[in-house]
């Protein structure tokens, strides 16, 4: 029996890499930590990450000369200057520590083999002599949008290995994990967060968890794209949705949605970027390497937004391969050889075999760009504190800590979860040790009663009409066709209208199953309105942003516009409003001045002020947005690196 109210010091919602790493930090600092998760932590979607984790160790020949500085620049370029550069800096500096810490936790990173090694680079086989003195250090593979080989990896199961290692530390520290528990609402008084109302997915019972600090680490919201996503079926984005529900906490850059170039067609299962990093290439229906024409410099290894657009363009130009499930392109990794495929890309080999019935050593892989990553999320400051709500934090993909801006580089996300887990975890522990638990039971029970009422109302509804599942499918179609890779004002307008109509329809959708217990349909009906709200926030943000930046591409405004749009979208959903309110804040202090990314289009609308003028305006604007003071002085990490060459 679960009591109606339980308490802890630090409550972490989400047992993925970000949540667990954060909980470890808090527990190590002596706070009692509790993790809630939809699934046993090791089944969180972090386990699906295949390709690698970026950290500038510079251990192999092709990584020579790498440093956090170069990593920082790659990250900012990748973000199309949408990132908060202070955060990107913290990130790049801490990433090597995070990777080494994982090695310490037991991750079997693939290591440098001193002596001759065969690699494929830009479609050609080359032999490189790795230094014997580096033998046994963590090695790297190439990933998109980076100047150096930087992605550390454990075969093609990096996320799996990392998550298991981190979870083993959670077990070791005896951190309480309540799996199959879903947070469905935050308990707050408008300025401070006290915990959550949660629903047990085994029994259907609802209860409150009160904590000094609450951390949202619920991962991405890819499932608003229905089945057109590489994400797990549990990536509903509920964490962001319940933060939005407070009416106070804003979500940042929700329109920044990443599409991954190579998802298996039609199932949408991801084929890692590591395939292209290791030398695979993309072919159209004439078996032509179109990326060589499109991006002579980086070829298949430009950033994901750029490659995805070229692929879509290729398909739109009639060069896609026809299949009963729509058009796709080919990913060719046959030349890497069966040995490479069954060791360094083993998981890819298995996926091809299990889900497409092909052997990638003999057959080409049918791929197409598919929704993959949510750059947007709960807007937090450098310390991971949510804007406008004390005691509430967010980390990982659920957060908009904002080192990814408008496009995340492959491999930067795993690194983010661990770096942010460490950094934010320390802040959370600090905050929690400096405050006492405010067991405001009245507030908690009011929230619990409201949640119970919601569930009862849902069960009590009568009538017929589309089921929540049908509405979900309709949402997915709208999102992929109108809020996809190429966006236009007209499409976005109609998407906004249609999503609003779905919200209306959903408010009287009727459940088919009313039985007691877990009731999966009720569980979905409880979380789906949140997904609709997130979808509307994405569409409205995209409609408002009249420029193209990173993954957000407006065919009607194809240029990046640093004059008007070098900023971050903040979306708040005022209580009882029918749509979010958008506002904007500067991206943060600029260190690396906006310029050409090194791939993609070189055309843009330039800023009409200098970097220092921009920076001066930042601090007070941020303060106006209710940003909490950070432990580190603003700008303390900046190094003014504009002049430094790549």
């Amino acid at each position: 029996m679960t009591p109606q109210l339980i308490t802890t010091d630090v409550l972490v919602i989400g047992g993925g890499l970000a949540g667990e790493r954060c909980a470890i930090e808090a527990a190590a600092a002596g706070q009692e930590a509790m993790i809630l998760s939809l699934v046993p932590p090791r089944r969180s979607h972090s386990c699906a990450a295949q390709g690698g984790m970026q950290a500038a160790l510079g251990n192999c020949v092709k990584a020579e000369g790498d440093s956090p500085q170069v990593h920082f620049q790659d990250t900012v370029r990748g973000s199309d200057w949408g990132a908060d550069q202070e955060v990107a800096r913290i990130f790049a500096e801490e990433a090597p520590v995070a990777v080494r810490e994982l090695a310490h936790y037991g991750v079997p990173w693939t290591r440098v083999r001193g002596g001759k090694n065969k690699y494929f680079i830009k479609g050609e086989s080359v032999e490189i002599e790795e230094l014997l003195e580096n033998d046994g250090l963590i090695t790297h593979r190439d990933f998109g949008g980076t100047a150096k080989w930087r992605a550390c990896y454990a075969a093609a199961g990096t996320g799996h290995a990392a998550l298991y290692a981190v979870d083993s530390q959670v077990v070791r520290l005896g951190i309480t994990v309540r799996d199959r528990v879903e947070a469905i609402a935050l308990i707050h008084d408008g300025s401070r967060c006290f915990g959550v109302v949660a629903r047990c997915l085994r029994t259907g019972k609802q209860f409150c968890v009160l904590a000094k600090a609450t951390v949202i680490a619920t991962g991405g919201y890819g499932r608003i794209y229905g089945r057109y996503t590489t994400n797990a079926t549990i990536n509903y984005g509920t964490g962001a949705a319940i933060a939005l529900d407070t009416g106070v906490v804003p979500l940042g850059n929700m329109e920044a949605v990443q599409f991954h170039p190579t998802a298996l067609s039609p199932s949408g299962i991801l084929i890692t970027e590591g395939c292209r990093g290791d030398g695979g290439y993309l072919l159209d229906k004439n078996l032509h390497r179109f990326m060589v024409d499109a991006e002579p410099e980086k070829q298949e290894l430009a950033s994901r937004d750029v490659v995805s657009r070229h692929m879509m363009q290729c398909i739109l130009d009639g060069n896609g391969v026809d299949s009963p499930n729509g058009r796709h392109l080919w990913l060719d990794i046959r030349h890497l050889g069966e040995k490479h495929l069954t060791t360094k890309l083993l998981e890819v080999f298995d996926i091809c075999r299990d889900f497409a019935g092909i052997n990638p050593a003999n057959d080409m892989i049918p791929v197409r760009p598919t929704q993959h990553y949510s750059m947007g999320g709960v807007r937090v400051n450098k310390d991971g504190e949510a804007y406008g709500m004390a005691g509430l934090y967010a980390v990982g993909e659920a957060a908009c800590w904002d080192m990814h801006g408008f496009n995340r580089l492959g491999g930067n996300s795993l690194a983010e979860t661990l770096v942010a887990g460490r950094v934010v975890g320390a802040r959370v522990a600090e905050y929690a040790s400096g405050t006492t638990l405010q067991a405001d039971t009245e507030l908690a029970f009011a929230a619990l009663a409201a949640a119970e009422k919601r569930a009862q109302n849902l069960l009590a509804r009568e009538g017929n009409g589309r089921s929540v599942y049908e509405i979900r499918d309709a949402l997915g179609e709208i999102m992929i066709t109108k809020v996809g890779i190429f966006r236009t004002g007209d499409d976005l307008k109609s998407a906004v209208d249609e999503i609003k109509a779905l919200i209306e329809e959903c408010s009287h959708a009727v459940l088919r199953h009313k039985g007691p217990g877990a009731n999966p349909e009720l569980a979905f009906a409880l979380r789906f309105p949140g997904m609709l709200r997130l979808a509307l926030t994405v569409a409205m943000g995209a409609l408002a942003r009249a420029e193209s930046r990173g993954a957000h591409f407006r065919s009607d405004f194809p240029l990046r516009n640093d004059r008007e749009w070098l900023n971050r979208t903040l979306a708040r959903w005022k209580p009882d409003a029918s749509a979010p309110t958008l506002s904007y804040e500067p991206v943060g202090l600029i260190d690396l001045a906006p310029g050409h990314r090194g791939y993609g289009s070189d055309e843009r609308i330039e800023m009409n002020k200098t970097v220092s003028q921009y920076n001066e305006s930042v601090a007070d604007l941020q303060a106006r947005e209710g940003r909490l003071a950070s432990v580190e002085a603003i700008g303390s990490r900046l190094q003014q690196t504009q002049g430094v060459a790549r």
Partner: protein
Amino acid sequence: MSDKENAAARRLRFEIFRFNPEDPNSEPHIDVFEIDERPYMTLYMALNEIRETLDSGLQFDFACRSAICGSCGMMVNGRPSLGCRTLTADLPETIRLHPLPAFKLIGDLSVDTGTWFREMAERTEAWIHEQQPFNKDATEERMSDDIAQAIYEGDRCIECGCCVASCGVANVNPDFLAAAGLNRVSRFMMDPRDKRDDADWFEVVAGQQGVFGCVGLMACADVCPKELPLLEVYAYLRRRILGSKFLSDRSDPPPDINT
């Protein structure tokens, strides 16, 4: 590939075990559902279709739907399999689905593998017992790539529980660590970063809950969706334990070897 795409539109008959322990009126029984087969249909798609169109109370677990998270183990015609990677084209028209045995039932096809694996991890202390505390300023310790690959091989277990469910011994002896547990143990035994020695491992591995509980049914290796070399793991553990027992000085380590 082609025969899966052209799968002549079959009508699939699903016989699914049903029981909701939360519902006092629920009795264990079998429900029958029929749906049309589609090209490349997996049990993940089929079960969702059943839930979304025929019985929205049906309980089952999927997360990654790409055979890497281990959520969706279930008995498919008597054999533990991952639902998400099982193509209906590989199955006969009648498909019998049951929850994995050996685990606590949550409802219908959903079982509590999470608790089992967490307890296993606690019992075997399945984390690195490091030699030195982490030093954030030092470069990583070296390790040969061959060892890293060998460890990775053991690390690939996705804790789906199929091996546990398939093993007759694990089904009657809840203490048995089973293939998944012993594979995890051997992964740490292999790891040079772990300071535990054979004496520390001895009782975890050697008892009836460990490798000598196994009678060699070999089902675990046959059903493991990740095709882990589980029998090799068992043989390795047996030999190593034998070596440590008879090659060592046979002295008892002190009783409190808590690490």
